[in-house]
């Protein structure tokens, strides 16, 4: 059984009478420990797919099984718990709480855990140190650069030790140097065993993954694995596609 199992997922948005089918039958499996990129042009449905994977919204049709549990059957309570324990999100726009210190932002997910660890603040501090922000824990997002803010969000995504990291265009708002640092962080996390699903429209960023899924117009166009290659040298054309 895979960590993520999607079968014929569709998503239809209904707005004032008219319907847009954004996802048109997506089926895919993702195993524990995989490093996956989802790539595709703007408007292809990447973010919509990620929202469904992250239990932020439910599919219109199809079944989504996460870690053996059917998401459609879950209550709001259960969904919240799954988001809290199994998934860590990283967004293009950071989505940090305004005016709240880095450490409080990182600690926030722990506040919604079943059991708040005794040393929540210590864990948050350690997570920030790990992303190189140990000296900035009291800074608010406004006092941090874009790259630093994104590192705070990575610390926040890690704090509950989730099975899956979902990142939607994490480098989209960053310059190339900061982008490279963030990608290095994901690479490390994956090397340590985390499942990483990375959404991007940049080839170069996608190449960090071992598997690249191309989404176009709400459907999977290609799904290729690139095994045992040093990521920085890999390219989709030259790599040993399966």
């Amino acid at each position, binding site marked *: 059984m895979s960590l993520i199992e999607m079968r014929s997922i569709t998503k239809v948005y209904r707005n004032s009478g008219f319907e847009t089918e954004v996802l048109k039958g997506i089926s895919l499996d993702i195993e524990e420990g995989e490093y996956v990129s989802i790539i595709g042009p703007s408007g292809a449905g990447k973010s919509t797919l990620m*929202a469904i994977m*992250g239990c*932020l*919204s439910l599919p219109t049709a199809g079944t989504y099984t996460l870690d053996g549990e059917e998401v459609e059957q879950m209550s*709001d*309570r259960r969904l*919240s*718990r799954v*988001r*809290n*324990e199994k998934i860590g*999100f990283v*967004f293009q726009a950071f*989505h*940090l*709480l*305004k*005016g*709240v210190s880095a450490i*409080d932002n990182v600690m*926030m*997910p722990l*506040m*919604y*855990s079943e059991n*708040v660890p005794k040393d929540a603040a210590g864990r948050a501090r350690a997570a920030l140190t790990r992303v190189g922000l140990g000296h900035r824990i009291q800074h608010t997002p406004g006092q941090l650069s874009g790259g630093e803010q994104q590192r705070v969000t990575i610390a*926040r995504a890690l704090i*509950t030790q989730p099975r899956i990291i979902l990142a939607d265009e994490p480098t989209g708002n960053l310059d190339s140097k900061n982008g490279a640092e963030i990608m290095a962080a994901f690479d490390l996390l994956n090397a340590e065993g985390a499942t990483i699903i990375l959404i991007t429209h940049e080839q170069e960023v996608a190449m960090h993954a071992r598997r690249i899924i191309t989404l176009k117009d709400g459907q999977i166009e290609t799904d290729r694995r690139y095994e045992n290659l040093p990521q920085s040298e890999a390219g989709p054309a030259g790599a040993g596609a399966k």
Partner: protein
Amino acid sequence: MRIFRNLRQALRGLGQSKGNTFLMTLGILIGIGSLTVIVAIGEGTKAKVLERIANMGFGPESFSVIAGSGRLFFARTENPTSMTLQDADDIRAMPTVRIVVPRQRVSIKAVYRANFTETRVYGATPDWEEARGWVLSDGEFFGDEDMERKRRVIVLGATPAKKLFEGEDPIGKKIRLGQVSFEVIGLLEEKGLTESGYDPDDRALIPLTTSMSRLLHQTHLDSIKVVAVSPEKVGEVMEAVRQLLRRNHNLSPLAEDDFRFITPEGIMQWVTQSEQALNRMLILVSTVSLLVGGIVIMNILLVSIRERVREIGIRRCFGARRSDITQQFLFESVFVSLLGGVFGVVFGLGVCFLLERFDLLPTRVTWEPFALAFAFSSVIGLVFGIQPARQAARLSPEETLR
């Protein structure tokens, strides 16, 4: 406990949006503040009214019968002529009646040399003094002989005495009422203005017989004051008087009374009624001000939720349940309401203090506004917090972050 964590998030949230917190607190402050002031004014006014009734000279065993239908001080028929000395004598014959004072009353110009003043002149019997329990400050009251001889003697209240004599000793002096001259034989002790501005000292008394044959030239009475042997008998006596007067005045069973009663109880009832009306109005006013405060809170919460949709979405992404968001917003509004309640009470007490200090309105501080403020502000926080809180929680995390 999850609930305490949400409380902490709420307090943090309030600290981060100080402008909104301030406005919401202000809204509740104004509501609770005016509630405190209004209740205090209501209580203060009630106390003054009760004091005034006590000053009106009604002992618990006395009442007055006034000619003309109506209620208390408010006549429905003008100048009835049906009440006579015969009525007064018949009432006096009742075993449970101690004193009966038949009276005539006229407003007339009193003149002493170049000074004059309009005052209320009562024709009464010598029993008036005892029935009313009003002490003289000088001279003496008229007696039976003055009545028999229809003497032109007068007892002055403090107000006409001052206005006419301006410090001169009035005893033994002659004044004129219309064309009739009277000798001043006594002065009533001064009572002073009542709260409402009524001047009980603006009056004079002459023998009823003199009033009938020399001043008013009429024999019907304007009122009869009755003192029963004891307070418990008052009801019984009033009913007997009613039957008697209806018989004497030949009223058919269907006709309404052509007289009315003024009793301490009646006044009390009347005061209580107007007090209730006043209270109702005050409650209305303060409810409106509280509602305004509540609506201010609700609107600010709604607006701030629109501003904070993103925050809600972020929290939901990382594991906040709907109930966590609801609780957080509820705590925020309840906390703000209680804060506003406390400051509102303090503010209200300050206003009360100033009103008393500068003698603007009577106020009396009681414990009720505190309890009310506490209850009301919690209720407002709950009621007006629920809607925005639920609205905030219903949003799906995906939508809120788009």
